[in-house]
């Protein structure tokens, strides 16, 4: 079976400063792969690189067996790999409905804009209530739901999320994680970047990044049982 996403030997530099060194992993259809790591470990660089926002200096990225290197971010999104960037980056001066419609793609046989938006409202009823409100006036949890909803507009096969729990109250974080779980159960694979180790509850597999390299990789239980993760992320 071809992997949904395959990353091989990926390295990223910012003007001589190495952010990622030789990172490899793959995501299978329908799984939840978690990337754990401290601030500055290279997690965001990794997602931005897969999403086409940053060019790697070495390595290969492929989606469904086809190389994604050199594609524009929009082209990568159109191949079913959606990226929800760090920090709930909604478009503050557009309404909830307009935020969602920005990422809608007209495709032969695809859903119409109203259908696609209604599907998102079905998943996030709060967004339906606030459809005409400007996104900048939503609460943090609502903005995160909107950012995730925007990523789901074109029914991606893989949803990449950059720290969806960042800056949210624990109770809201739990809501977001449970929504992510339903999304995964609907068959969409997740690539979840987190510092919050409770994200491991969602995970099938994952890896830990430290200083831009893979420090540890394995199944959820492997990660949870490792002394490193227990000490650094679970506070045990």
């Amino acid at each position, binding site marked *: 079976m071809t992997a949904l996403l395959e990353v091989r030997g990926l390295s990223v530099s910012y003007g001589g400063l190495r952010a990622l060194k030789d990172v490899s992993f793959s995501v299978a259809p329908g799984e939840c792969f978690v990337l754990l790591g401290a601030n500055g470990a290279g997690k965001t660089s990794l997602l931005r690189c897969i999403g086409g926002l940053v060019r790697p200096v070495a390595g290969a990225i492929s989606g469904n067996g086809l190389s994604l290197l050199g594609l524009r971010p929009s082209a990568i*999104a159109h191949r079913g790999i959606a*990226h929800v960037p760090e920090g709930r980056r909604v478009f503050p001066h557009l309404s909830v409905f307009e935020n969602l419609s920005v990422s809608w793609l007209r495709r032969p046989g695809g859903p119409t804009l109203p259908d696609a938006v209604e599907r998102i409202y079905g998943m996030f009823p709060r967004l339906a209530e606030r459809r005409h409100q400007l996104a900048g006036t939503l609460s943090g949890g609502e903005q995160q739901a909107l950012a995730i909803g925007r*990523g789901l507009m074109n029914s991606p096969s893989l949803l990449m999320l950059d720290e969806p729990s960042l800056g949210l109250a624990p109770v809201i974080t739990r809501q977001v994680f449970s929504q992510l779980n339903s999304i995964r159960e609907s068959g969409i694979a997740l690539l979840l970047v987190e510092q919050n180790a409770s994200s491991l509850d969602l995970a099938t597999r994952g890896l830990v990044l430290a200083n831009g390299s893979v420090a540890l990789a394995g199944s959820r239980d492997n990660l949870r049982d490792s002394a490193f993760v227990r000490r650094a992320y679970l506070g045990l």
Partner: protein
Amino acid sequence: MRRRDLLVGGGMALAVALVPFIPGINSYYISVIVRALTFIMLGQAWNVIAGLGGQLSLGHGVFFGVAAYAVAFLFNGFGISPWLGLWVAMALSALLALLIGLATFRSRGVYFALATVAISLGFEKVARFLTAYTGGDAGLAVNFRGTAPWAMQFRGPAPFLWMDLVVVVGFYLFTRWLLRSRLGLRLQAVRDDEDAAAASGVDVFATKMVGFAISAAMTGLAGVLHVQFYLAIDPGTAFGLFQAIQIQLPALIGGLGTAAGPILGGAIAILLSEATNWWATVSKLQGADTLVYGVVLLGVVLFAPAGVMGFLRRKRATPR
């Protein structure tokens, strides 16, 4: 469209359209309105790329100038009617925008803004030295034909008032449509957050290119109407920095990224400029008009950074 907008907007447009029919009106006042409408039109054009798209074109005068020179050159040299020439002029402006965008929209930061200034100043020099085609420093005078509708020439200013009014209303309706259209939403998404727009599947480069070309073509139309009204164009008026700064005022004063903003802002700026000009003449303080004008503009930027529209919205907003 909301009924209130229709009534207010339609009423204002009708009032302006009827001004030339006021018995015994001095044509100077009609000329002032023509100047105001051109100013508003330029603001509406700039607002598309800067207000909706967030791309700060600091040398937007270049599109105004290129179109003005093009239509004058085509008429003087080949007898081509400005009614045809305006399409060529608008296409040239759009093409120039695409070339500038091609060179600068792939990189981030200030390159775009700087490139527009550099190109504008470059064109000013070209216009001064290509004397055979542009008339050099003195500029081009459009061959005078008296009242000749086919040549877009009229003895009085009233026909220009009506033409400019049609364009301003058209630009307003276009901006209202654009704000809610797919292209307009993408432009605003790029303005609000370029990375998030790209991650949402928006082709950032293509969106900026299309927005910039539309804005340039609109600016070009203003250039055509300007040159037909004055029947002359010179390098300073066309490509000078003053013109480039003027273009930004209506949207900045009225409210960036709104449909009505450039209209309000343009009207306010012209009234202010006329009033200070009059005051400076009466009080014999030469240059005082520019000073007062500058101070008031500074006040707008400091105290109403979202422009008049932003100020009105804040007042109208009721607590939930």
